[in-house]
């Protein structure tokens, strides 16, 4: 072999070796970057800062109890997993009511009726519960349709009531309430719907006229279905609805919808109301006024009240009523297996040839078994029973006399 080729061969091999080394180092740098990225997520900063806040206010000991790592509220019924509490760790923490976000306690009253484990965060606030960085979580990122309905958005749309936007979400469940506490803006809009007679032309919540379009699921429409050619400002459904309520003709030339001269606030309220009309799938127990309850009739209520607190309450408490009625005291047997105890004084005598007193103190037959195992009665209770049964017998006799007359 000649030496020239030998050298050429070596040169190419040496170059390759150098390149492999460089590539190796590059690979290490890239892996290093990824590891660094893994070790320093945004939420870790928030968690350590929260720990400082707690340490300062409540001491190191309490700070040590703060859970670390990604946190989530998983609500199976709503198919929801909200990681908001990864950074907003103070939500259920007492004593940070005046803190600043994300280290601020959530108003407690509303959480009591809407507990976190049942509602999560995004059910009311919107935003992207899946996300674990602020931008994506607050949902102002591309491809997320439901941004956080909070301060930023209210300021952007110049909505005077800061909780107004969020009430869209309240109305997902409270849709059929006439008025709901804390939902002033939607309440106002609902009032307007009645006052202005929207149902003359539109179907609202399933009833109304057919002159205008059915609005029952207006909130379900996608923004693509609206024409924004004549809309000034930011192209959003909210802008469209607000502008349309203020002056329908300006947006839809051929419309016959009259201009009601709504104020800005009212137009925004109505826009929020129609946007809340969505096809939301809710488990029955989430609907405030659901009919999936066994509501007793007045008759049933009266009967229950009489049984519980009437003159025969003793026999209900002691569960005699399971088998026996005490007709004169208003006690009705659940299963009428035993004889009416109103006639016990006579009845015992004729059946067993013993006085009531004697029988109850030393029962025989079925009553012996029942009173010794299932419904044990003390001596005092037996005496009380005897007393009450005599009373019932007197009443029964009077009743009979009255009937005869």
């Amino acid at each position: 072999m000649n030496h020239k080729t030998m050298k050429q061969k070596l040169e190419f091999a040496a170059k390759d070796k150098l390149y492999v080394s460089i590539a190796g180092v590059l690979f290490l740098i890239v892996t290093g970057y990824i590891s660094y990225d893994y070790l320093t997520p945004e939420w870790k900063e928030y968690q350590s800062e929260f720990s400082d806040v707690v340490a300062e206010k409540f001491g190191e000991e309490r700070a040590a109890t703060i859970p670390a790592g990604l946190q989530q509220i998983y609500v199976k019924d709503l198919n929801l997993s909200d990681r908001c509490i990864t950074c907003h760790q103070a939500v259920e923490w007492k004593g940070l009511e005046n803190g600043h976000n994300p280290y601020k306690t959530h108003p407690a009253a509303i959480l009591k009726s809407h507990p976190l484990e049942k509602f999560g965060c995004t059910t009311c606030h919107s935003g992207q519960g899946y996300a674990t960085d602020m931008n994506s979580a607050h949902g102002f990122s591309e491809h997320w349709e439901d941004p956080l309905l909070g301060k930023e958005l209210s300021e952007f749309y110049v909505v005077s009531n800061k909780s107004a936007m969020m009430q869209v979400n309240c109305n997902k469940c409270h849709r059929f309430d006439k008025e709901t506490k804390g939902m002033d803006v939607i309440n106002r809009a609902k009032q307007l719907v009645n006052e202005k007679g929207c149902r003359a032309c539109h179907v609202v919540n399933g009833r109304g006229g057919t002159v205008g379009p059915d609005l029952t699921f207006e909130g379900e429409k996608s923004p693509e279905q609206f024409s924004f050619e004549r809309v000034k400002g930011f192209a959003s459904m909210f802008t469209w609805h607000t502008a349309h309520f203020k002056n329908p003709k300006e947006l839809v030339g051929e419309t016959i919808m009259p201009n009601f001269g709504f104020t800005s606030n009212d137009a925004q309220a109505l826009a929020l109301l129609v946007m809340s009309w969505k096809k939301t799938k809710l488990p029955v127990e989430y609907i405030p006024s659901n009919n999936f309850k066994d509501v007793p009739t007045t008759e049933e209520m009266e009967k229950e009240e009489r049984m519980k607190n009437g003159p025969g309450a003793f026999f209900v408490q002691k569960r005699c009523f399971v088998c026996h009625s005490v007709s004169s005291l208003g006690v009705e047997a659940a299963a009428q297996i035993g004889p009416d105890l109103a006639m016990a004084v006579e009845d015992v005598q004729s059946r067993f040839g013993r006085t009531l007193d004697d029988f109850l103190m030393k029962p025989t037959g079925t009553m012996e078994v029942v009173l010794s195992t299932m419904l044990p009665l003390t001596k005092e209770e037996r005496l009380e029973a005897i007393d009450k049964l005599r009373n019932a017998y007197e009443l029964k006799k009077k009743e009979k006399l009255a009937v005869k007359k």
Partner: protein
Amino acid sequence: MEEKKPLSHHKQESEEQHSSRREFLQKVGVGSVLLSAGAVGFQTLRSLVPNVLYESARKFKIGLPTQLSEGVTFIEDKQLYIFKEGKSFYSISASCTHLGCTVKHTKLNQPKEVEIHGEKKTITSEFHCPCHGSKYYADGTNYAGPAPRPLKWYKLELSPDDGQLIADMGIEVEQNFRLTV
């Protein structure tokens, strides 16, 4: 070519330096690759360790104590028995301490006299495991079959908000635990 020209001493030395530098560089390269490969291996395994869980909570509400029926209530999806004896409550896990099958609460035909931890007791029910025949007394003490330990007892408490009974399957308690309402 090198062989044709006699190499000077100096040149040879620089050649040696050159080659040692080359070797060093090569070692750095190979080392980096190995290190990165290790890191990638770690990352791969790490990705399979979940950071969030979609499991139901270990602490949950059962309902108002007054609405619970007397005696035993079985909460199926949590493998938990809740006992109500008048005003006192306690809960025993239904998960067999052998291999985790759900034990069945069985009423005895006749009350049975047993000795548990040197104490004589009358029991009216037992727990039987369907998988490998483990048996437990009414208080969860194991007495037959492969079960190595008594059934677990979990803490019960009342919710300060709405007075509902809360079972906390994260906290184990002694067999004498009773929640009195």
